[in-house]
């Protein structure tokens, strides 16, 4: 688990580097005329809510397992995965609705690389949850006594959520 924490510290540094680049670009390089920083806020706000709720549902799943309810654990895991998938779908929807493409200007490029890199993390997270969900079936390798995989996936998922909250603040609100 300590190894995973170190990995997430490293992963967080990748995001920190990208955030630093974004903020510097924004402070130093003026956008060409026609470029805007303001984005539609409705979808991203819904997205934020989806991810924050999914953190709680994951936590709930872990607690169900500790209390001995394998069924409850699997149900809440499935809900969490659905919330993650909904986030990804909604993110794609936002991409299609945006008026600019990847190479439009510096802000557009940074926006897509940052949200895309985060989206990659969410995708991996959803896959991880589904794997854990499969392992938590009756007779699977994850049960009340042995649940390292579940805890690792939970920590990763909270990390991805936390990164999103920072990203939302910096890119959408700032």
């Amino acid at each position: 688990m300590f190894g995973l924490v170190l990995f997430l510290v490293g992963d967080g540094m990748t995001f920190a580097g990208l955030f630093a680049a974004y903020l510097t670009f924004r402070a130093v390089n003026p956008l060409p005329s026609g470029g805007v920083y303001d984005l539609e806020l409705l979808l991203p706000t819904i997205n934020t809510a989806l991810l924050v709720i999914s953190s709680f549902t994951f936590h709930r799943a872990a607690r169900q397992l500790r209390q001995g309810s394998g069924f409850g654990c699997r149900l809440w895991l499935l809900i969490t995965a659905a919330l993650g998938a909904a986030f990804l779908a909604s993110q794609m929807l936002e991409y299609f609705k945006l008026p600019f493409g990847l190479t439009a200007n510096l802000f557009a490029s940074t926006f897509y690389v940052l949200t895309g890199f985060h989206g990659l993390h969410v995708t991996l997270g959803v896959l991880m949850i589904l794997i854990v969900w499969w392992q938590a079936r009756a007779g699977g390798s994850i049960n009340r006594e042995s649940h390292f995989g579940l805890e690792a996936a939970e920590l990763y998922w909270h990390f991805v959520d936390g990164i999103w909250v920072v990203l939302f603040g910096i890119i959408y609100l700032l």
Partner: protein
Amino acid sequence: MESTSELPVSLIPNHGSWLRYLSFSLDHKVVGIQYLVTGFLFYLVGGVLAGMIRTELATPISDYLSREVYNEVLTMHGTIMIFLWIVPVVNGAFGNYLIPFYVGARDMAFPRLNAVAFWMIPPAGLLLIASFFIGGASQSGWTAYPPLSLRTPALGQLIWIFSVLLLGGSSILGGINFIVTILKLRRPGLKMMQLPMYCWAMLGTSILVVLSTPVLAGTLVMLAFDIVAHTGFFNPAIGGNAVVYQHLFWFYSHPAVYIMVLPAFGLVSEILPVHSRKPLFGYTTMVYSILAIVFLGLIVWAHHMFTSGTPPWMRLFFTIATSFIAVPTGIKFFNWLATLWGGKIALNSAMLFACAFIVNFVLGGITGVALAQVPFDIHVHDTYFVVAHFHYIVYGGTVFIIFSSIYHWYPKITGRMLNEPLGMLHFVLTFVGFNLCFGPQHWLGMNGMPRRVSEYDPQFTLMNQISSVGALLMALSTLPFLINVFHSAWRGRVAGNNPWRALTPEWLTSSPPPVENWNGPAPHVEHPYGYGLVETTP
């Protein structure tokens, strides 16, 4: 977490056969030797490239290599030497071999992750070298500064990025493994302040690896986007900002200097006490110096960018922070000198290389402090003075310690001693060749010869030719070393368990050690440097 300690020895694949060095082995000693041998092979490739550079520079005009090929060669030389020789060997090779012994463990914390980290290196290296033959290698130097890296052959630059990403990934996995092993796998009762100094050095190095390498990864991905998708992050022509690349790049690559030298600081702290029969002087200050270097190393990156339009307040901050690093580093040097002082010094090959390290590194360190001063740096920026400075650090410092360590630990790894006269010959050729090669480059830089250019003003001819002769001596010095290593493996004097009468735990087992390091429980070493304090058994 899994460990080979659950497997009986007979079930370890290929146990005892040399084939295990070609396998996905989980034994930390095998992985360490895999790192060492692979790294050395890449060192030979990088050395041939260095020889090509010095051959070209023996004359003022560009006659032996075309300008483009010269640029490819210098890019590959730098990349291979840093990412495939020094970083993997001084961290991966000795770290994997020694750390489990030092913490009293049977293996690393994550043996499988360890093997994965190693096996990322050969494909990355081969890919990098292959880029020479498919459309031309990158020509933008090991720093790959945009916009230059956007103009070099795109395929070569992309291969370079991909392979550095692989090597960085390997380095991060290794770093995580070292931190967990040192903090969590210590033998019960072994306190942090009883660990041999190399553990502290690797702990500090691994913290730097985990914090800074991911930033390089993110940066290189953005650079790849600029090349492939024509985004404009670092391309000023379409509104991008090339200086941001420099900041992000040096946020990794300055700590990378410490990733290359801190482990060497650790290794020399193991070697000096053994061969001078004295305790390591100032253990506690050594530990705090390492931690100070780790912290300061993270906040000095922009001293590489004094001529990049960096504002004055930033220059001032980075000058002061950089000058501060001289303090903990100086403490370590005085501690090493005090360790030697009055000791019963055995001037064998390992010790000669270690002492030469002190000399070379002090020279490189002094030029480093000089370069931290803005007015001086502006004068010599991107000249051969900088080339001389960092070769005194990474070759005169780290590579000397790698050789010293090989002479010191070869008896443990193979069970046989290396030949001393051949070792001395290797040392003399390396030391003379090295100083002859890089000493004159200080003068060249001070007089304005720029780096990374295949042609120069004829007034620099003599000094360049002296430098090239030095490079030739360095190339020759590899021969006695190779002969020694191969000959001694078959015919060397049998070493016994502890030929140096050392006190650190790796010597308290057979040579070579058994798969799980000790045939009984791990020994408890309370005083790894207790020379003159505790009984030493041969």
